């Protein structure tokens, strides 16, 4: 039963129906309604930049705290505090000594002595780096600071006593 397929369409009345005038517009409208909604794409560009900056900052912070600066030992921290304390006191005493001393030769002589003590201190500090917890080196360092301070205190007291007001020019006989 052979059939020509074109015969099927010749009898169909589908095309006989009139198409409404605004068919095209209705179609486009319907088509538009049927389209899946388009969501706007979010931009992660700035978030990426912020994350990178945060990562860099935290890396630098971690590096500084753990790798770049090795932790100081308890002895080193204490030694630094002692040194700071002494040097402040030495400076104070030296300034007040210079205020009351009139003899420039005396000031110069003591200045030289302090320089000598300082040079010795630098030498001992090198030993401390070599042997950080060594009793002999630590003792030498603290002795040096103590001697410096005592040296200035002593001469300052001496000058104070010389500057007292009760003066006499008469020989005492005993």
């Amino acid at each position, binding site marked *: 039963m052979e059939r020509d397929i074109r015969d099927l369409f010749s009898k169909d009345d589908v095309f006989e129906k009139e198409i409404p005038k605004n068919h095209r517009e209705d179609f486009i409208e319907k088509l538009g309604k049927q389209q899946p909604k388009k969501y706007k794409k979010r931009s992660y560009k700035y978030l990426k930049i912020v994350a990178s900056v945060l990562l860099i900052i935290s890396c630098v912070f971690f590096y500084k705290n753990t790798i770049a600066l090795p932790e100081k030992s308890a002895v080193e921290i204490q030694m630094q505090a002692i040194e700071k304390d002494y040097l402040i006191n030495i400076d104070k005493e030296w300034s007040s000594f210079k205020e009351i001393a009139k*003899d420039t030769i005396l000031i110069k002589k003591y200045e030289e002595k302090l320089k000598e003590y300082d040079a010795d201190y630098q030498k001992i500090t090198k030993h401390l780096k070599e042997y950080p*917890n*060594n009793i002999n080196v630590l*003792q030498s360092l*603290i002795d040096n600071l*103590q001697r410096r301070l005592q040296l200035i*205190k002593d001469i300052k007291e001496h000058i104070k006593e010389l500057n007292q007001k009760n*003066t006499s020019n008469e*020989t005492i006989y005993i």
Partner: protein
Amino acid sequence: MKPYIFSILFLLSVTISFSQSKEVVLDTVYKTAENTTLNLDLTNVGVVFEESPDDNIYFNYEIIFSRYSKGRRENVVNQSKIKMLQEKNLINLEMKNSSFLGFDYRFIFDEDTNSISWLTKNLKNETKNLLIKQKTKEQILQEIELSQENILNNYQKRNYIEYLKKKSFKLKKQIIQKFVIKVPKHVKIRLKATECNITINHKLTTSFVMNSFKGVFKFNQISGLNSRIIASKGIFEANNLQNTRLEFLDMYQVKIGDLFNTNVVSETSKIEIGEIGENVEIKDFSSKLYLYNFHKNFTKFELTGDYTELNLYKVRNTNFSMDVSGFNTALNMDGKKTSFGASTEKELTKILHKKRKESSPFLGNIDVILKNGILNIK
């Protein structure tokens, strides 16, 4: 048992190798002649000199280690650099220890300290000037005798030893150094010492020459002709000194029992003398001098001082004559403070004159010149 035998052996070997052991660094004997000189150049060394039982010089230096591994012990021992040489009548010893060992041969320390609070405990007391009362010569001698103990047990080390006691015993590392040199009496000693702890127990009757920087020095007697001592930034103690020229620079402590026929040049030092004997002269800059007593026949004592603090005791009751002159000098006597000769021309004015007493034996004359000085008469 058999499977564990190697483990037990291993543990035993570890225990033995880490327990106490002695390393002999130097053990040598040298023969001497009549005019032998011992020339020593020491750095960071603690040494005790004793009189030799014969004509030989004996050197014996050993280090006792507690709980140090063999490698570590060898490392410490190898740090000592020693050169010995004999040229005719001259015996040379050059020795340099690292500052790791320090100079105090009797002091015990460990290297795993993690606190230095004990170092700073009594700083305030140490820096405070104490009023020093008169001492007899015997008191000074006793102080010198006990001073080794004092030096060892000074505030830092005393606290350190307390710290060690508190520490767990099991892991304590220790190093004790013992260095003894036995020298015959006729041998002359020339000593150059940097940061050393030197004790000479026997009497030095031949010429003795010493040049030192820092350190602690303790002598029984130095009486050889032309003896000379130059010491700076250290501690010096001697029971008796005669025929010596002394130079003290920035010395923290000088204690001398008695002093005869000696010239002293000093600068910024603290010097205590139990008794001044015959022919003593002192030239000083900015030191604190405590002259406690004068020998019954001291004859003559001269002192010239610039910025010197001179402390004299029982001046009224002792029969010597005294003249004090100077300028810009303060006199503290009988509870009164008076300044003398505050002239800008720096002319010497007579400050004090003490006459001799005819009734009791006369000791001698004291002649003092003080510029910018303080004279405390107690």
